[in-house]
């Protein structure tokens, strides 16, 4: 009897698994499609890209497009600037975010809720609406066309504060109190106890900050002339309205996208590790 039930269930399970697999496969194909198009087109001659239509096939591969990118754009210095901006901006956003979140969760003080509300309010302000005041401020203090000038308005951001505040709020207050009783100061409690307990959320904040710093375009374009140009601004020079070469544009896109893909892949491992090793989970 049991054997009969089992044998009847198995095909049903298999059918469900197949459906689930197919759904995931379709979803993956939808996500993978533009990545495939960009990567393959980057290695194809322009004429082939145009004639192949939406789904290019890697037939006659060439590196000519990448050579053309390097001829048009000063890639190495711009990559270095981008890395510097990402490092500075991400570190600052996560540190200031963690400090603010800690202050909003653990010590009890009057006006905490109002302060958090003000932080949330900043999320509703469109970034482009503060570009001109930022431009004037950064220009006035002589930081135009510098790495610091690119990063300065973004050394603190509302989203990491919000994200970390929510994560810290889930940490039992007893753990924080215990650390304080053991003689740890606020900074030690934050960096040695609270943050390791929230590693997945901290990782998410790092990824968010790093991606937004890497993908920044309009502000770096506005505040730099040539000395501190980021790679996103540099790559935009590959476009020249109707005179653009689509394959070269794809090659430029690949060069810009690879670091972000690597970041997400590597950080995903940290996320998983964090979930597995988090002291409270």
């Amino acid at each position: 009897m049991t054997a009969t039930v089992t044998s009847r269930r198995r095909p049903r399970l298999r059918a469900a698994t197949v459906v689930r697999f197919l759904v995931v496969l379709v979803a993956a194909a939808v996500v993978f499609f533009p990545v495939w198009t960009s990567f393959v087109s980057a290695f194809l001659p322009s004429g082939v890209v145009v004639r192949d239509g939406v789904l290019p096939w890697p037939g006659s591969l060439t590196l000519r497009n990448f050579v053309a990118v390097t001829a048009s754009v000063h890639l190495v210095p711009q990559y270095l600037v981008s890395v510097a901006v990402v490092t500075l901006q991400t570190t600052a956003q996560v540190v200031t975010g963690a400090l603010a979140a800690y202050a909003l969760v653990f010590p009890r003080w009057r006006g905490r809720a109002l302060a958090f509300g003000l932080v949330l309010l900043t999320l509703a302000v469109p970034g482009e609406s503060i570009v001109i005041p930022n431009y004037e401020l950064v220009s006035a203090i002589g930081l135009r066309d510098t790495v610091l000038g690119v990063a300065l308005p973004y050394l603190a951001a509302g989203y990491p504060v919000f994200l970390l505040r929510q994560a810290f709020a889930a940490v039992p207050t007893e753990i924080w109190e215990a650390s304080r009783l053991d003689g740890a100061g606020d900074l030690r409690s934050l960096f040695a106890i609270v943050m390791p307990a929230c590693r997945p959320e901290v990782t998410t904040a790092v990824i968010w900050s790093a991606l937004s710093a890497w993908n920044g375009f309009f502000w770096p374009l506005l505040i730099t002339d040539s000395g501190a140009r980021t790679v996103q601004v540099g790559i935009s020079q590959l476009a020249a309205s109707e005179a653009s070469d689509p394959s070269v544009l794809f090659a430029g896109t690949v060069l810009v996208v690879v670091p972000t893909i690597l970041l997400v892949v590597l950080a995903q491992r940290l996320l998983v590790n964090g979930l597995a090793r988090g002291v409270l989970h």
Partner: protein
Amino acid sequence: MKTRIPLLVTAAALLVSLAACSSPGTAGTGDRPADTTGSAPGPSALAKADGVTDITIWHGLGAANGIAFQSAIDRFNEEHEGKIAVKATYQGVYADLLAKYNAGIRSKSTPTVLLGGDVATGFLTDVGQSIPAADMAKANPNGLQLGDLAEQATNYYKVDGVQQAVPMNVSTPMLWVNRTILAKAGVDTDDLTTLDDVVAAAKTIKAKTGVAGYSMQADDWYIEQLTATAGQDFCLPGNGRGSEPASSISINSGQAKENITKVADLYRSGVAVDGAPDGSAAISAFQAGKVGMIVMSSGILGALKTGAPFDYQALPFPTSGPEGKSGPVIGGSGLWLSATATPAQQVAGWELETYLTSPEVQEEFSHATGYVPINTKTADSASQQQYLRENPITERFADQLAGTPVVSAAAGCVSGAMTAIKAENISQIVAAFNGQKSVDEALDAAAAKAKDSFAEYQQQLGN
């Protein structure tokens, strides 16, 4: 890019109002030399300057165009070593470039020379941050001779009879045809001179080959062409070029309306295919042999050279208006000289403009980019004549520019409100092309919005 248009328009409006309050047009630091004419310094300002005069130029030329431009700048620097040093900086596409220029006005960090897109002519004139080219030419009689430049191009940058900027890179709209498809459909290219010819040919192509007959970039520039080639001013009165500013557009009346309706019918009946706002779909369809004719800028020649393995040709933009009173409007960008730079920098900037528009540089730049040379003396060069013999398509660009009458309709509209108007127009036109709205409804809506935009812009100017 599209998402930044509202911000850009707002920023432009704000800055126009600021400019209206304080006119910096006469500025320029340092002593004014004796040969100063009005606000324009003469050659002695640079001659008296000590050491190297550093100047900057901002541009929006990317890809091959940017490389060719930088190489011209490098040669200028070599030729003027020890006297003038130019730093050229790419500042994004024209909309980004203008946004940055706007920000620069407030923080007093604008460049000595701005290579600004044609559509910005009205705005750049109104903010009064530039010395009119006419004044510089008068104060520097041995420099750039404006009379040597194609009048069809200089006319675009002339506002209220005054030459404000100097055209540098000029493109012109063409009718690109796939001769293989046309031959299959039995269409003769010699029969494609008027818009009616083109509309009939597009229908024949679709009927006989099954391939789409027509496509064009979904950009307002082409709607302006359909108006200008009808001999009709796009903006009223007088395309905004007289003493009275533009206050309305005319696309919902006369021959322009008829032309747009004819083209819309091609889209609505499936004879035409969508060309996309950046023209990429039109170019791709043409290169893939999926459309017989496209209306696009002369600037696509480079893209076609690498990606169109069939016999193609560029024909003059089809007309629908009276000969001698109608013709296409130019595209491209012009050189604006800062009114706030020092006199030495201004003269150095004028020398740069003289160099960039010289017959030799224009010839070389044209070969590298596909832009039409705007110095008429370029045509006298033996190497240019040889090049045109070997590149008959390029010759057609030059012929079209030279054959365009210097009339109000072909000069195009000049108004600082055009950036906003173009964006609104195209959304209405696309709605008409894809059948979401009737053509009448879309054109009337575009005209009503344009009227509001003109009024709002004038209000910002304090008029």
